[in-house]
Structures are given as structure tokens and as C-alpha cells.
């Protein structure tokens, strides 16, 4: 969806940390796993710097905006603070998603009544076919496109380009990513992983010039290139942040103004919208706009908010001749009625990415899908196949809970990650090597004497190991990273960390001694 976008970041001083060794990447298993991609990201100091600066800024801005809301609520200037607002947001979303068929029918009726055309698409192939068909029957050879996660999801650019329709991204971040031939790495800030220098280089190559790295120059260059495209394009493609069911209004939010040109300069406007993007009324929309701006960029309201209700009407000065709204299912309806239904409440604000300590280390590409961060770890296995993506909820989350705390729709992201992990175990897909020790521990440790014996034994083994050349032992050199093998949780720990000496006696033993010898401590 076209979302309030944040600019790319400059680099700061290099980190002094000893980072994990990049050579480990080759050892992390042969499949294109999260772990392998994560290792690649961890070895990319530039990427990590750029991501860290951007998410820290965005996170701080969001926190400040939310704090401000608390103060405003206290003075009675807004209806409830952040907690109250997200409570309402959740209720509205639960109502809408709970009766999605009704709201979809209402929205479709309203859009048609205003002269728009409504399409329903089951997945990528259908969206591609519909948009291709609209373009080819109207002789369109160039399309301009606003930022849209739904079109990323279905790979629309490739579908159109294979049919001879050139697509130009008009959101600055997306344009940079398109020039680089990459995928967005953040829901709101697609080029978050790029430094200013890289951007100047990309734009310079596109325009055949050598460019300085200051923002006004770079933005000016991009603006001039894109202006021409807006005027030439026969089709404008956008996403939607929201669709209002009662009026059929497509709502787009941007900070660059490219959304207005994309949706009104060309004679045909096509909006690709996930079916979960509905809100019942304009009044509800106001709440979500406020939450979205605050959560994604810390703004009170985004710079541009477009409410598009039908194509250009008789006597109206601007707007396209035709408006097509394509509602994309793309696997969403299969989530309805499951324990994951709440994930459809997501408004793609990116706050969970900005606050996630794992995303902060890696950026978005390590997640391997269109969506990254906590929402990606929950959503990608649902939309992109569980077997292929179960490693995201399993390995890309330390369960710190930061995401669940900031989500403006109050989606219980950590609970949903846990639900994925339970499914993984149920389906026998936990290949971490931890299943056996966890099961054995559970079976044994419901018997206290077995627990006490195993604690003593484990401690003895560790103490012996530490004094020897065992990995991580005092005499051992630092070992390179390796995948977790069935025998390997200990090795995985010792890759990068020492194990402090287990105490000479367990607390159980100390306590027993204490009981026998009186209370004179150790």
C-alpha cells in the first residue's frame, strides 16, 4: 500500500563490536533458510548501520507521538489515548474481518455506484491477468506505480513487463529499489537498507551523471525523471491503505505526493487492494489514519491523504477516466476462522519492524518474503506456505514482546509466533535438534529425584568440559559458527559465548546442607 514513507539513511561511525564471522554463512545448511540469509545480513556492516539508524529514529518518533497522545487525552483534546485508540481499532477490525463478506459486498456496490469497476482476484495469476488485460486493450505501454505491498506480493511488475508494459515506480524508495533490482526491505521505508552514497550512485547511473549525496539534489533528480513518466503513462497503479465500505472510497496515504499524480494523471487508475483493507465508515477511517501516521513515522497526519471515490465525474476537473479496484485474496480467506485471524487486522504501519530487535540487526531481506519483521514472521508462513517458511517464527524471534506492545491494531504478534511454533512441533517440522532434549527434560523433570540427579550430572560434565579443549572450554580457541546439529545446542551456545562455570554445588545441594548444618550459609 502507499504508506507514509521514510527516507534512506546516512551511515554513522562503524561499530566496534566483534560481529559473527561471515564465513559461517556457508556452513548454515544448504537450503535457502532464514539462518543463511540472516548470516549474510549480519556480515553486511553498511546494511546494519543504515537499518539501525532508521529504525531507531522511527521508533523514537513513534514513541514520542504516542506519548503526546497520552498528554492530549489527559487534556481532553483527543478521544482517548493510544491504548484506548488501539482498543477501538481492534474492535473495528474484528467486526470488519468477522463479516468480511458483507463489507466486501457493500464496498463493491458503492464503488460500482460511483462508476468504478470492481474485480476479485484469487491470487497472483488473476491480478496479473486482469491488469494486463486492462493495459493491452487500451494500448498502454507505460504504467506509473505508487508504493504498494499487495502488488509486491503478486509480482505485478514482472507480469506487466513480460506483456510489454513498462512499469516505473514513483515512490522515491521504491524507485531506488527498482533501479537496484531489489525487493523492498521495509513495509514503509523500502530502501531502508541503502546508504545515501549507494542511492546517489544508483540515480547517477540511471541519469548518466555523477551526483552529490545531498537529499535536495537526489530528490530533485528523481522528481525530474518521474515527472516525465507521469505525463507519458497511460495507466496509474496504486495500492490502498484503506477502502471505506460505506462509500467505496479508496484511501491512499503518502508523504511525497506521488500518489496524487499516479492516481489522477493517467487516464486509467488501477488499485490493487488486499481484502482485509476494509473499514466500515469514514468515521472509522479517521481513527485509522491517526494511528497509521503516528505508528509509522510519528506524524500526527501524513502529508498527503487521498480519498478517491470513483473516477472523474461529469464536470470534475481532474481524475482518471476509469477506476478499477481489484480485491486480492491471495490466501487471506484461508486465515479466516483460524487462530491467526487477528493478523488480518494489520494496517501495515511498520511499527513492529521498527521496534523489533531482530529486524534491527538484519533489515528485511533476511526474512525472504515481501513482509518482514514480526508481521512477516507471522504472515509469510500463512500466505507463502508453512513448510517453506516455518523457520521464520521458529528462528527470527526472541519473544521479547516489543512488537505486540506497539501494534496499533493490538495484534498479539508474540502469541501468533508461538502458535506457529506449536504447529511446527505438531507437524514434526522442528529440525533444530532441541526437540529431544526438551522432551526428555519434560519427561524426567516431573520426577524431582531425576531432576536433581541430572542437574548434578550436567553440572559435572560442564565443569569437566570447561577445563579441557572442549569448544568454549578455557583451553579452546574461538570456534566458527555452525548450524545446530542434533548434538549441538551446547556447541551453538559456545559459538561466541563462554559458559560460566557451573557452581560447585546446585542450590538444591546448598539448601540441603544448610538444613543439616544450621543456617551459616555456604
Amino acid at each position: 500500500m502507499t504508506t507514509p514513507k521514510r527516507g534512506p539513511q546516512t551511515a554513522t561511525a562503524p561499530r566496534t563490536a566483534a560481529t559473527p564471522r561471515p564465513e559461517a554463512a556457508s556452513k548454515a545448511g544448504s537450503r535457502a533458510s532464514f539462518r543463511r540469509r540472516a548470516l549474510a545480513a549480519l556480515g553486511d556492516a553498511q546494511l546494519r548501520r543504515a537499518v539501525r539508524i532508521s529504525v531507531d529514529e522511527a521508533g523514537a518518533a513513534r514513541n514520542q507521538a504516542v506519548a503526546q497522545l497520552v498528554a492530549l487525552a489527559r487534556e481532553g483534546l483527543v478521544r482517548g489515548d493510544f491504548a484506548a485508540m488501539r482498543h477501538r481499532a481492534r474492535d473495528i477490525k474484528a467486526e470488519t474481518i468477522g463479516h468480511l463478506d458483507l463489507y466486501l459486498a457493500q464496498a463493491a456496490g458503492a464503488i460500482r455506484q460511483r462508476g468504478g469497476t470492481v474485480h476479485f482476484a484469487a491470487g497472483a495469476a488473476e491480478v496479473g491477468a486482469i491488469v494486463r488485460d486492462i493495459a493491452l486493450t487500451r494500448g498502454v505501454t507505460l504504467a506509473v506505480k505508487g508504493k504498494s505491498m499487495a502488488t509486491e506480493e503478486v509480482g505485478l511488475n514482472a507480469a506487466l513487463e513480460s506483456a510489454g508494459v513498462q512499469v516505473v515506480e514513483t515512490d522515491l524508495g521504491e524507485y531506488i529499489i527498482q533501479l537496484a533490482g531489489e525487493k523492498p526491505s521495509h513495509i514503509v521505508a523500502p530502501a531502508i537498507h541503502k546508504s545515501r552514497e549507494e542511492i546517489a550512485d544508483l540515480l547517477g547511473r540511471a541519469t548518466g551523471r555523477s551526483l552529490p549525496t545531498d537529499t535536495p539534489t537526489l530528490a530533485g533528480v528523481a522528481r525530474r525523471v518521474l515527472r516525465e513518466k507521469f505525463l507519458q503513462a497511460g495507466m496509474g497503479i496504486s495500492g490502498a491503505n484503506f477502502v471505506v465500505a460505506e462509500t467505496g472510497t479508496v484511501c491512499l496515504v503518502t508523504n511525497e505526493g506521488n500518489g496524487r499524480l499516479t492516481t489522477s494523471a493517467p487516464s486509467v487508475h488501477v488499485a490493487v487492494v488486499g481484502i482485509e483493507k476494509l473499514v466500515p465508515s469514514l468515521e472509522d477511517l479517521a481513527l485509522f489514519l491517526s494511528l497509521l501516521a503516528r505508528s509509522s513515522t510519528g506524524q500526527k497526519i501524513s502529508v498527503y491523504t487521498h480519498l478517491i471515490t470513483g473516477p472523474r465525474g461529469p464536470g470534475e476537473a481532474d481524475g482518471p477516466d476509469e477506476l478499477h479496484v481489484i480485491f486480492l485474496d491471495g490466501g487471506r480467506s484461508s486465515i479466516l476462522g483460524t487462530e491467526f485471524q487477528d493478523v488480518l487486522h494489520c494496517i501495515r504501519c511498520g511499527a513492529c519492524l521498527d521496534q523489533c530487535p531482530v529486524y534491527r540487526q538484519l533489515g528485511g531481506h533476511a526474512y525472504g518474503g515481501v513482509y518482514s519483521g514480526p508481521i512477516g514472521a507471522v504472515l509469510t508462513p500463512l500466505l507463502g506456505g508453512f513448510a517453506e517458511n516455518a523457520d521464520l517464527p521458529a528462528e527470527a524471534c526472541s519473544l521479547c514482546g516489543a512488537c505486540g506492545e506497539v501494534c496499533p491494531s493490538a495484534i498479539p504478534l508474540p502469541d501468533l509466533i508461538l502458535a506457529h511454533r506449536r504447529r511446527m512441533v505438531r507437524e514434526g517440522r522442528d529440525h533444530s535438534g532441541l526437540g529431544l532434549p526438551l522432551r526428555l527434560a519434560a519427561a524426567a523433570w516431573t520426577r524431582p529425584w531425576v531432576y536433581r540427579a541430572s542437574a548434578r550430572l550436567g553440572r559435572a560434565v560442564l565443569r569437566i568440559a570447561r577445563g579441557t579443549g572442549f569448544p568454549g572450554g578455557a583451553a579452546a580457541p574461538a570456534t566458527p559458527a555452525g548450524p545446530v546439529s542434533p548434538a549441538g545446542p551446547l556447541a551453538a551456545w559456545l559459538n561466541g559465548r563462554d559458559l560460566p562455570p557451573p557452581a560447585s554445588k546446585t542450590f538444591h545441594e546448598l539448601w540441603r546442607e544448610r538444613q543439616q548444618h544450621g543456617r551459616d550459609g555456604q
Partner: protein
Amino acid sequence: MRVALFITCLNDIFMPRAGLGMVHILERLGIDVTFPDGHTCCGQPQWNSGYQAEAEALGRHFLDVFEGADYVVSPSGSCTAIVRHTYPEMFRDDPGRLAQARALAPRVYEFTEFLTEVLGTEDLGASLKGRAAYHASCHMTRMLGVTEPPLKLLRQVRGLDLVPLAHPELCCGFGGTFAVKSPELSVAMGDDKLEDVVSSGAKILVGADPSCLLHLQGRAQRRGLPLRVMHVAELLAEGAGLL
């Protein structure tokens, strides 16, 4: 007042000194401390890794062991959160166990929370020289909502210079089995935390969760950082001359 110790398996094996410190402090405050011999592990590693049946087995054992205790006090914010918040969810379809879990939940306290909220104690008469940074562990902060109690206690320690971190809200990267499922990531997150601590000028890293401390201490040691990693109970007891 009687208190049953929920020492946690990690403390039992790796940080019994913190457990002892906790006992000494409680006894100094006139508490009758008991230690249920059957106490093992709360099941958090299983629960957080998706092993529901296994977590439930340990949960049932825990509920039986601590049944009828007046107060249950633990040196781990994370394990306290499991008993207080997760057990009622874990057993929501088992009325008998649910009743047991709900009865126990309000009587389980994290150590510093128990001292400040239940006993109303902040000053233990401790003194310890040094500059210290406090690591606010995630579950203690976000699930239990316990943020101030450890700081209140530490502020009363004479000679202790408590310095703030730039990013206190960031996870240290332990994350239970995350530490060994994604070891490189876990270590990278630990490095960020340690850098934050080192640039704060602290020479002591103090926390209320043995698991985070074990991870951070292990990484600090591997990197040769001159940092003393201490559990808050250990620091307080040492400062009060009890250890």
C-alpha cells in the same frame, strides 16, 4: 510470613549464589523461607519452543509442588511471568488445573517486586562501590510490568552509581532456545547490549533474570570485557554483608 522459593532451574545450576543471597535477604527481613524439594523447572523452554504437552506436564508438576503456598518468590522475572500469565492460558481448557493456576497466580512474585510491593522494603542497608547498569529483561518488563522495584532497591545501595542505558528497551538476545537456534543473531544482539553497557561507563551489569545474565556474561567473557555480571539478589546480599 512464609515464602516458598521458586529458584528456577537455571539459578539452581548456574547461579545458586543469587538464590542464597535471596534467602539471606528474606530471612534478614524476618521471613520464614521454605524450599519445596520437588521443585524442578516451570516448563518455559518447552512452551516457548512449541512443545505444549511437555510444557503442560511441567506446569502441572509445578502447580502441585507449590499448591497451598502463601507466597512464591523467584529470582527470575521471566519464570514468574510464565506462572502468573502463561499458566492460566496454558490450562484454559482444563477447569481443575485452571482453578489451581488462577489461585497461584496472584501469590507468585518476582524477588524485587516482592520486597518493594509486598514487604514495602527499599533500603536493605547495603553498600557496594562501583558504577552499575541495570538490564531490564523483556518478560519482566513487558509481561510482568515490573520496572521500578529493582531500581528502587539498587538506588538505596550506598556507593553504587547507577547509570542509564541508551537502549534499555532492547532485548539482549537470549530468548530461551533462540540463543541456540539463532546463535549468531543472539550474539549480535548481545553485543549491542554489551556495547550499550560499556559505553555507559558501567563496570557492573546487574539484572533480575539469570538467563539473560548467563548469556551476557558468557559473551562478555568471550570478548574479554572487564564487566562484572551480577544478579540483583547477589548484589544486594553482598552489599548487605550477607554473602
